[in-house]
């Protein structure tokens, strides 16, 4: 038989593959027992700078981002981890949801929130040598007023007049009281911030191309940007904080694939990665050679119901959907058993959260879901629907489909690439049910953007006049007690309306090598780099 040797080689190969599979399967069974319980918050606002010792100067930090930068222009909405390094921020958010001066010296109101006086630090210059003065702030704010697509436009729009009282003082007059106005000067670029100030000279030179040639007063200056490869920043020698920054430079690299990104930090290619998903955070938390910074934040991962389309314009169907999602099963199947479950708008540690809101949230109860669906069917409604999401969420889609099948609903699944999904599905309101991730630190503007009628991330078109009024009241008032009360009521009402299906907090994390010290961050992952140093 001529074929013998060849056949036996194939048999040997097959046997080898089978052995490998068996070994793999057994190993998997061992590891399944390791991870238990929800992920815990860990240094959400950065490390303890005092306890980390005297900073050592020098070194270049390599940072892996989960997506490429779109633009450094603060009027262009994009997730840009390098922007705060170039611009710094006039104000900075504090863990209790307020804003304190950072690049600015102070921000005060003289009449309960309508007139605001911003005072700048003397002697601060942009990296091109021009002064960061009142005029620079006015020029930048005017850009947000003029650019309707700017994420900060809704806040800037409320300014009726602004003037330079003296070279270091700007007076803003608003259309009414706005107690949270300073918070708007400390937001991350993606939520819209008035606090990222670009050099007016550079604006004049580059015009709309400023997004590729940023000049600011931050700890680092822009050196080069090779799209889809790297963005390089170098130390700003004339930085306003004495002796800072400690690092010589920063290099940002886009690493959009979760597996690749995690491999890069694990094998030491980069010093820091900005994580977006549960998998990498769970693995990093089990790796003793990595340090994680993570806070679950408000909102999180949730489903948008479309209030303009059947069947989720009906509250019974919204409740049916929430009651048929078994979060324990979801945790086991897709979150390595480490799901941080969400049953309310605000996270449990937030002062705006009440236990009552979480208690009133529907629990997993397929019997109740079946009843509600029957009722809806009897009323002439069709409970079957199409679930649209991104190609990375196929397993979640299959999970939802299986859970709905168990209560008698037929779900069609459609998957899109991220760009198409954002524009033609979510932002065009062309869905019945879809997924989203969003985490915010301070309730303003996050909650208003999400829940106010016409809010710019209210993609499901939820609308409740009572909620609108409370959100307006909370943003307007300068009284913390009134604000807290208003937000607690918002959370309660939104929970009663089942405006969104909360199921998980977010997993936006910063993962670093242990020698990276002096981390100063927001829960949304945006970082301030002046204090960062390398212990090596």
């Amino acid at each position, binding site marked *: 038989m001529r074929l013998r040797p060849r056949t036996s080689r194939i*048999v040997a190969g097959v046997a080898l593959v089978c052995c490998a599979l068996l070994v793999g399967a057994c190993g998997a069974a061992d590891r399944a027992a390791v991870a238990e319980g929800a992920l815990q918050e860990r240094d959400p606002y950065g490390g303890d700078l005092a306890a980390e010792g005297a900073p050592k100067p020098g070194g270049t930090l390599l940072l892996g981002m989960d997506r490429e930068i779109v633009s450094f222009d603060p009027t262009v909405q994009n997730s840009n981890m390098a922007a705060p390094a170039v611009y710094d921020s006039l104000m900075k958010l504090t863990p209790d949801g307020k804003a304190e001066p950072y690049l600015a010296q102070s921000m005060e109101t003289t009449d309960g929130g309508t007139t605001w006086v911003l005072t700048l630090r003397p002697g601060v210059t942009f990296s091109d040598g021009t002064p960061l003065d009142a005029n620079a702030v006015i020029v930048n704010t005017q850009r947000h007023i003029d650019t309707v697509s700017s994420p900060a436009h809704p806040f800037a729009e409320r300014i009726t007049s602004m003037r330079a009282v003296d070279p270091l003082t700007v007076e803003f007059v608003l259309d009414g009281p706005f107690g949270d106005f300073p918070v708007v000067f400390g937001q991350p670029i993606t939520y819209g911030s008035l606090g990222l100030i670009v050099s007016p000279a550079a604006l004049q030179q580059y015009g709309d191309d400023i997004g590729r040639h940023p000049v600011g007063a931050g700890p680092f200056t822009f050196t080069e940007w090779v799209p889809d490869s790297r963005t390089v920043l170098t130390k700003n020698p004339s930085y306003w904080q004495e002796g800072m920054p400690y690092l010589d430079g920063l290099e940002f690299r886009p690493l959009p694939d979760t*597996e690749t990104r995690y491999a890069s930090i694990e094998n030491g290619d980069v010093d820091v990665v900005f994580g977006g998903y549960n998998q990498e955070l769970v*693995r990093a938390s089990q790796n003793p050679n990595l340090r994680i910074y993570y806070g679950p934040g408000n909102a999180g991962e949730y489903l948008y119901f479309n209030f303009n389309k059947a069947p989720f314009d009906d509250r019974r169907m919204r409740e049916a959907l929430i009651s048929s999602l078994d979060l324990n*099963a979801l945790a*086991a199947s*897709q979150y*390595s058993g480490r799901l941080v479950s969400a049953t309310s708008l605000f996270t449990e540690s937030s002062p705006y959260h009440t236990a009552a809101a979480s208690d009133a949230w529907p629990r997993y109860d397929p019997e109740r879901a079946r009843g509600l669906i029957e009722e809806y069917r009897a009323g002439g409604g069709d409970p079957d629907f199409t679930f649209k999401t991104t*190609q990375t969420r196929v397993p979640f889609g299959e999970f939802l489909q*299986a859970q709905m099948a168990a209560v008698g609903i037929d779900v069609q699944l459609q998957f899109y690439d991220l760009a198409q999904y954002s524009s033609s599905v979510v932002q065009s309101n062309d869905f019945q049910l879809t997924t989203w991730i969003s985490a915010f630190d301070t309730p303003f503007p996050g909650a208003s953007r999400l829940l106010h009628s016409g809010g710019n991330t209210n993609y499901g078109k939820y609308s409740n006049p009572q909620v609108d009024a409370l959100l307006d009241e909370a943003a307007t008032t300068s009284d913390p007690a009134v604000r807290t009360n208003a937000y607690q009521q918002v959370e309660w009402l939104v929970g009663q309306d089942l405006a969104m299906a909360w199921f998980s907090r977010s997993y936006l994390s910063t993962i670093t090598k242990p020698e990276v010290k002096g981390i100063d961050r927001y829960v949304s992952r945006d970082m301030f780099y002046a204090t960062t140093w390398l212990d090596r």
Partner: protein
Amino acid sequence: MAWTWLGAVVLAAVFAPLLPLWDPAVPDYTAVFSGITPQHWLGGDTLGRDTFSRVVYGARASLLVGICAVGLGALVGGFLGMLAGYFGGRTERVLALVTDVVLAFPGLVFIIAIVAILGSSLSNLILGLAILSVPTFIRLARAATLVVAQREFVLAARAYGCSPIRIITREIAPNVVLPVAAYGFIMIGVFIVVEGSLSFLGLGIPPPTPSWGGMIAGGRAELLNYPHISLFPAAVMFLTVLSINYIGERTRKQFEVKESNL
């Protein structure tokens, strides 16, 4: 060996609903990522669905796509190819142009476009793959026809006054069918892999219908911790395509021998 494996896969696929298997679409959350157990012979996937059952049902989708797409492509392409080879002239030039256009178009982009416009479903996938395979079948059938059309029995049929359609279907087709079928058999293997790649990209058969490519893609996120979720369907696909290629090669060689003996 190859025949045994392929036979087992085909039989399992055909008789899947009669076999005592788990329902491939129903999750069992106690078996999420489970390894090999007496209940789940090849373990459970990310939703705890039985991998063995899904591999068997996945064979239906994979084989259906492979066979239908190739069958459709061979039928249309074979017929057009015979027309081109028999008539020559303008018919041949037009068909050659069409063939070159389709062959020059990137296949994956074409499928993505079809799925984007018509939506992802089994029939759209088959349609797209069939269209992609038509040009190769045209070329193959045309080449074979050119040889056969010179032969004496075709001349005799023409002398009898048979219509071109009759000559093509009765005289030429039986001689063209063998090389086309041998090539088509190999193409089935290729299309099973292509279906896998498309499902991996989320453009294949929509869930919950299991397909091998979809199963491999489903285990991707957990590849590091639970490689068996992707590896079992990948191994089955590997063995099946290997068998098909092996058998295809053998058959093709046999036909070559026969032709040279003529």
